[in-house]
């Protein structure tokens, strides 16, 4: 990152800024008078009272305190300023004074300045820029927490000018070695996006990168960023789907909510509906099934599944199952939002038979705060329409207490009504009876409506309900009566004939009831069924006609209707409301026979007294489930801003292989192990005849097979993951023994296959053995897990005892027995370890250095220094090392001199590069006293000459070593090569890759160091890898041949890391090669020595391109 845009050299605070000076009085004048009234307490402050009174400008005391060099005064001032902000008072005129303190040493002052800055930066953009350099410096701090907090504040400053700086900072932080900093980077993404949506494409790149992150800390935040920036890019999820599912349980709770909601949407686009075949069949049988106990349920489901299987087998995608299985434990979360998220996931994604599990958890949430209850009940109401059986066992949990807030009561009532059926209606109605006596009249009205709905839905109780409602008509509370009338009206419409008594009773009520809706309802009823009450109707109409002018419009209309229905007309056309006048005229025209309208009035009866369909009383929660449950939109029953539609299930399942990752993603195997896997496949197919592809294609071979076997049994399928986790256990310490283990494993495999061959008497069956081997392999892969995942490991330690005697541990035991000396037999292991041991013959030197580096990393714990190790391990196989010509035969008059870099430390001076010089005498005379003379080194360069060669016989070749300290530069070292007769001017120019010596470090050290070497010290270049340079082996070989570097073990399989130190100054050179899709790759070199870095990048790219 270049920081040229803002001068970073000088701390902002120490610079007097003209703008700051100019701005403050202006602001003071603007706001001084009016708002100082709101701040009387500052005048009373004893510490500042004197200053305040002497100067009329407000906040001057605070400014003075901020300018002082006492931290305690600054702190006091900042506290008061923050208190102002908290109360919503304007403190923006203090900006220049505050921003100066951004680099203050006192942490609390600093924090409060940050608070202030984030609040006001938007309003004072120019001044805010003063603070940027402080954060930029913070971004480079070796402490990850400081880096994170710098990024956090920097990205919170909403100033468009700094968008490029933010972008750069985010990109850099996204590849920080600290997961905490990466998490902060994920948080910063939506901030930047909201500031400048043009950055979307670049941000998506960062999101993509972070989505691949394997730490739980980052997962939640990056999915949040994904949801805010590019929720439509569902394709980014494919590769990370399984990882997210597996990490889910260890992600922090807020992240869980976001991930689960996103995965719900994802699953809807990628999997088939688990209920598609059952929809028609289950619709009827579901209810029955749900009433039964859970076991019956399962049986039913199985039976149905069996019968359905014949028609069209539905096999749940193993990934779909994985999601359901991994979210289920989260129903036990203490966080209501997580429970709700899982509940909605099950509701939208699970097969019907399994949805039931969420009911218990949702009912538990009803114990929580009333706001939580409110939201949960809304969702339960929607669910209970679709899946009534689910909540029926918990009916009593929805009983209403007099202390519940009204809104909760009404929602509970809704749920109770939804749950009512023929078996429980009597209990529910008894409950309702008590509710009607409540003091809360809104609630009573809602109860009456609920009774009405129960009556319509359940024919059996209709009469009972009606009678009950009629009794309510004599209630003293008008509201209750009115509500009853309305409901009765609706009920009567269903069976009018039998209820003339009720209609008569209601007709009497017209004298008392004043609520317009109720009056209108009564009138409508009388009119509609006037044939059943022939004597009363005209009476009522007469009464109503008298009071007509005083009635509400709705009542008037009904009066007219009644009149029309009674074939009477009244002069209503003088009403004030034109609508009513119109209606009256219209009806008169219609009914009173005139010459013109004769045709119509024949049909008048049909028009007015047509059979009207009975109204359907239904829940307002019907069909709300097209919104994703638990969402704001569902709650409001309206689409909220930014709501992502829950897609319908696809008809055809999209290709499930998009989720495949080359290697199981819960492991992090290094390239070495990957190579081995490739070799293993033929091994399996040879000896066992088993097809390997399934395993390599899918991350979870065991659970896959289990899934397809019994798709609906949750219990058994979960064991798959348990086993795997179990294998993790204890693997943390094995990293360093990898190599040995590998060999042991090979041997064991051999043993296993041999043992299996003669027959399986007494010993475990072939498959078991095979499985054991697989597991052991996985175990080894697990060993490579980075420490960031130790939490999940730790969580799973408990599993070990639960199923301790399975074949995995058996295999483990065997492996322990396998003698470590097995490495002695090279023939036995050649098949597998070909890559590691019998290395490609053409270039033994670089390849042997691979062996050495990997061995060194494996033996890391033994604290071997590289100087003592290197001579022993680096084979001085001279011929294959690249040699350079120092002196040509012709130019040297028969004497030819070649040199090469042996890559051994120069004995005696570790700062020198050892140059091996080979001198051949092609003349026919002896060459005597061959030596170096008159070295003309550039400044600082030193040459350690080789000892004089006394005599070189014709045809002879001598090999000597000289040391040159190149001062970490690629300048040539010039010197004379003298013989007894002549001298030759020669020069040795080192390739940049030879100016360094490998260092061996762990991945963490590497990351730590890399984190320190960012910005200018980092050089990144994109390249394409040629065909032959695709294998890990080739890449490593090419890099190590181009530069004298040591391999660093690496968790990711598409990354290669190398480290070295320059010989003279000992500066670190870190190389990262990251493979992208296809042939693309990215090379990053971090080094203080920029020149070396640049040249090295060039060299390596050249080497790889060859």
């Amino acid at each position, binding site marked *: 990152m270049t920081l040229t845009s803002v001068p970073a050299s000088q701390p902002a605070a120490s610079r007097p800024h003209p703008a700051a000076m100019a701005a403050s009085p202006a602001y003071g004048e603007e706001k001084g008078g009016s708002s100082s009234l709101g701040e009387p307490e500052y005048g009373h402050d004893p510490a500042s009272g004197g200053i305040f009174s002497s100067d009329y400008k407000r906040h001057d005391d605070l400014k003075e305190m901020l300018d002082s060099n006492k931290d305690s005064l600054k702190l006091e001032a900042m506290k008061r300023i923050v208190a102002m902000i908290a*109360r919503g008072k304007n403190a923006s005129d203090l900006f220049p004074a505050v921003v100066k303190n951004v680099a203050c040493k006192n942490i609390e002052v600093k924090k409060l300045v940050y608070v202030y800055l984030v609040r006001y930066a938007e309003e004072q953009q120019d001044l805010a820029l003063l603070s940027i350099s402080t954060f930029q410096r913070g971004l480079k701090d070796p402490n990850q927490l400081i880096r994170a907090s710098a990024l956090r504040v920097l990205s919170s400053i909403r100033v468009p000018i700094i968008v490029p700086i933010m972008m750069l900072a985010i990109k850099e932080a996204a590849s920080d070695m600290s997961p905490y900093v990466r998490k902060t980077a994920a948080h910063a993404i939506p901030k930047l996006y909201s500031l400048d949506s043009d950055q979307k494409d670049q941000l998506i790149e960062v999101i993509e990168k972070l989505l691949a992150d394997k730490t739980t800390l980052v997962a939640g935040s990056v999915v949040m960023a994904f949801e805010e920036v590019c929720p439509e890019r569902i394709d980014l999820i494919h590769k990370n789907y399984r990882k997210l599912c597996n990490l889910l349980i260890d992600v*922090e709770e807020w992240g869980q*909510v976001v991930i689960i909601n996103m995965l719900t949407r994802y699953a809807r686009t990628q999997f088939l509906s688990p209920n598609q075949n059952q929809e028609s069949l289950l619709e009827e049988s579901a209810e029955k099934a749900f009433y039964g106990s859970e076991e019956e349920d399962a049986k039913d489901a199985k039976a149905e599944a069996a019968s359905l299987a014949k028609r069209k087998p539905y096999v749940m995608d193993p990934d779909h199952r994985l999601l359901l299985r991994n979210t289920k434990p989260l129903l036990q979360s203490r966080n209501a939002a997580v429970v709700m998220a899982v509940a909605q996931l099950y509701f939208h994604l699970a097969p019907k038979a399994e949805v039931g599990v969420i009911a218990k958890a949702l009912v538990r949430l009803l114990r929580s705060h009333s*706001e939580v209850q409110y939201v949960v009940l809304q969702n339960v109401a929607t669910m209970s329409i679709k899946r009534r059986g689910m909540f029926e066992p918990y009916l009593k949990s929805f009983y209403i207490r*007099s202390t519940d807030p009204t809104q909760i009561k009404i929602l509970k009532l809704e749920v109770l009504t939804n749950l009512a059926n023929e078996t429980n209606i009597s209990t529910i109605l008894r409950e309702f009876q008590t509710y009607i006596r409540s003091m809360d009249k809104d609630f009573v009205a809602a109860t009456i409506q609920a009774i009405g709905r129960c009556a319509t839905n359940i024919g059996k109780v209709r009469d009972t309900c009606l009678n009950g409602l009629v009794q309510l008509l004599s209630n003293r509370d008008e509201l209750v009566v009115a509500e009853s009338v309305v409901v009765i009206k609706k009920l009567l419409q269903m069976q009018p004939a039998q209820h003339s008594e009720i209609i008569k009773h209601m007709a009497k009520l017209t004298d008392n009831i004043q609520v317009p809706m109720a009056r209108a309802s009564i009138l409508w009823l009388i009119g509609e069924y006037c044939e059943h009450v022939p004597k009363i109707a005209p009476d009522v109409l007469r009464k109503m006609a008298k009071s007509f002018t005083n009635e509400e419009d709705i009542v008037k209309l009904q009066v007219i209707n009644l009149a029309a229905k009674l074939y009477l007309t009244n002069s209503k056309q003088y009403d004030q409301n034109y609508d009513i006048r119109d209606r009256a005229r219209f009806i008169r025209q219609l009914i009173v026979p005139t010459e013109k309208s004769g045709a119509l009035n024949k049909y008048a009866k049909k028009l007015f007294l047509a059979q009207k369909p009975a109204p359907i009383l239904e829940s307002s929660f019907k069909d709300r489930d097209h919104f994703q449950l638990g969402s704001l939109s569902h709650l409001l029953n309206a689409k909220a801003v930014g709501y992502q539609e829950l897609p319908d299930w696809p008809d055809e399942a999209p290709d499930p292989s998009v989720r495949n990752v080359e290697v199981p993603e819960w492991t992090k195997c290094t390239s070495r192990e990957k190579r081995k896997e490739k070799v293993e496949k033929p091994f399996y197919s040879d000896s066992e005849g088993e097809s390997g592809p399934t395993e390599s294609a899918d991350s979870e071979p065991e659970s896959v097979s289990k899934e397809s076997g019994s798709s609906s049994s949750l219990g058994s399928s979960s064991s798959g993951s348990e086993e795997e986790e179990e294998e993790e256990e204890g693997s943390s310490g094995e990293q360093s023994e990898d190599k040995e283990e590998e060999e042991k494993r090979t041997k064991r495999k051999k043993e296993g296959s041999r043992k299996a061959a003669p027959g399986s008497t007494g010993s475990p069956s072939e498959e078991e053995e095979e499985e054991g081997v697989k597991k052991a392999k996985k175990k080894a892969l697990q060993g490579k897990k980075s420490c960031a995942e130790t939490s999940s490991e730790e969580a799973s330690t408990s599993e070990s005892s*639960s199923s301790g005697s399975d074949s995995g541990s058996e295999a483990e035991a065997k492996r322990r027995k396998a003698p470590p000396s097995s490495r002695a037999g090279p023939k036995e292991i050649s098949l597998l370890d070909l890559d590691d041991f019998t290395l490609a013959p053409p270039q033994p030197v670089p390849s042997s250095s691979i062996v050495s580096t990997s061995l060194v990393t494996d033996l890391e714990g033994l604290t071997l220094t590289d100087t003592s190790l290197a001579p022993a391990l680096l084979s001085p196989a001279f011929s294959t090392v690249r040699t350079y010509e120092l002196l040509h035969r012709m130019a040297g008059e028969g004497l030819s001199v070649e040199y090469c870099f042996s890559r051994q430390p120069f004995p005696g001076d570790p700062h020198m590069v050892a140059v091996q010089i080979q001198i051949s005498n092609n003349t026919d005379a002896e060459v005597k006293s061959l030596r170096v003379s008159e070295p003309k080194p550039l400044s600082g360069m030193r040459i350690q000459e080789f000892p004089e060669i006394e005599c070189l016989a014709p045809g002879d070749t001598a090999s000597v070593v000289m040391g040159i300290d190149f001062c970490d530069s690629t300048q040539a070292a010039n010197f004379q090569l003298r013989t007894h007769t002549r001298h030759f001017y020669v020069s040795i120019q080192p390739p940049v890759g030879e100016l360094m010596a490998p260092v061996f470090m762990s991945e963490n050290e590497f990351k730590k160091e890399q984190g320190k070497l960012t910005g200018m010290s980092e050089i990144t270049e994109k390249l394409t890898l040629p065909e032959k340079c695709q294998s890990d082996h080739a890449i490593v070989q090419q890099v190590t041949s181009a530069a004298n570097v040591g391999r660093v073990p690496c968790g990711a399989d598409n990354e290669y890391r190398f480290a070295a130190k320059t010989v003279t100054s000992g500066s670190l050179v870190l190389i990262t090669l990251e493979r992208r899709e296809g042939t693309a790759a990215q090379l990053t070199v971090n080094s203080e020595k920029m020149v070396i870095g640049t040249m090295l990048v060039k060299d390596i790219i050249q080497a790889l391109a060859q």
Partner: protein
Amino acid sequence: MIHSLFLINASGDIFLEKHWKSVVSRSVCDYFFEAQERASEAENVPPVIPTPHHYLLSVYRHKIFFVAVIQSEVPPLFVIEFLHRVVDTFQDYFGVCSEVMIKDNVVVVYEVLEEMLDNGFPLATESNILKELIKPPTILRTVVNTITGSTNVGDQLPTGQLSVVPWRRTGVKYTNNEAYFDVIEEIDAIIDKSGSTITAEIQGVIDACVKLTGMPDLTLSFMNPRLLDDVSFHPCVRFKRWESERILSFIPPDGNFRLLSYHVSAQNLVAIPVYVKHNISFRDSSSLGRFEITVGPKQTMGKTVEGVMVTSQMPKGVLNMTLTPSQGTHIFDPVTKLLSWDVGKINPQKLPSLKGSVSLQAGTSKPDENPTINLQFKIQQLAISGLKVNRLDMYGEKYKPFKGIKYMTKAGKFQVRT
């Protein structure tokens, strides 16, 4: 996610505002005030209020409305749960969460809020981490701070967020290592007029106070874990272990925390430890009614019922009540019509009772509803479900901690209909 937070007191003053993104004008709260007016009672204010440009999500606790402003789709429970977490954090920091307390500690409050959300997305909600970042104020520290000028902000950078057990501080040290567990069960019940149980459930929690040095790994096992029908855990509990062995295995947070909450299956019959005999009648003709209630112990397993408190909301028609209690004190508030009777301990030999007359508003007819009676009580040394902790073991540390288990049964939402 969450844009802004406004804290509004009972009289409708916004006394604190905090913005995590661009500033949202406080005038947005007008919509909230409107809804508040319509709702008449604080608890009836809808938790979600849509406005033209924002959505207001609120919780009401300690007589304060916490109103969060959001701009786009977000699961409402996410916000509500977070707001409750904020309240819990304040309570944890200041002992009580009240307007006065928040105003007095406004800087700490602001710092805490700043750490809890980043750009509206929760960052650190674990109180152990927060306390490492910002030390809660204590009287002693306030005094020391004013003298020495030191600060509330932790001067060491917190590492809790980076650890694999984010809920626990590193480097905890105590001279007395102790771990206390309180098993507290609450009975939710509705009892009908005749004294039979309509619905009864037991909800329990295990609250822990753990003060142990280092990184202890605890396991807690029950004599009868099958009783627990539905459980929810603190994130520290290893779920798999519970699933397979019904053992709670965890590395505890430091200090007070809720380890577990559970529900005892409704199939089990719930023992109701008290009964209420009542005789309430509002006579129709005269304006005088009769009121008599007696409280007595039922299935208490030989333990004393204490802290008994009876409250009842009288109908509007009631003018006043003239009552004499056989023990304890009683108050009738003629404005809110709320009767409360602080009974205290129940002596089985001499059952407490409250008798007297009710004067009704003249002219109005008898109220047709009967008041419900809400009951509170406590029983020490008893978990009504019969749940028993078997043993507590500690691994990972060498010292011997002091362990204690306490049981208590309380009334939850315990109502008697009359």
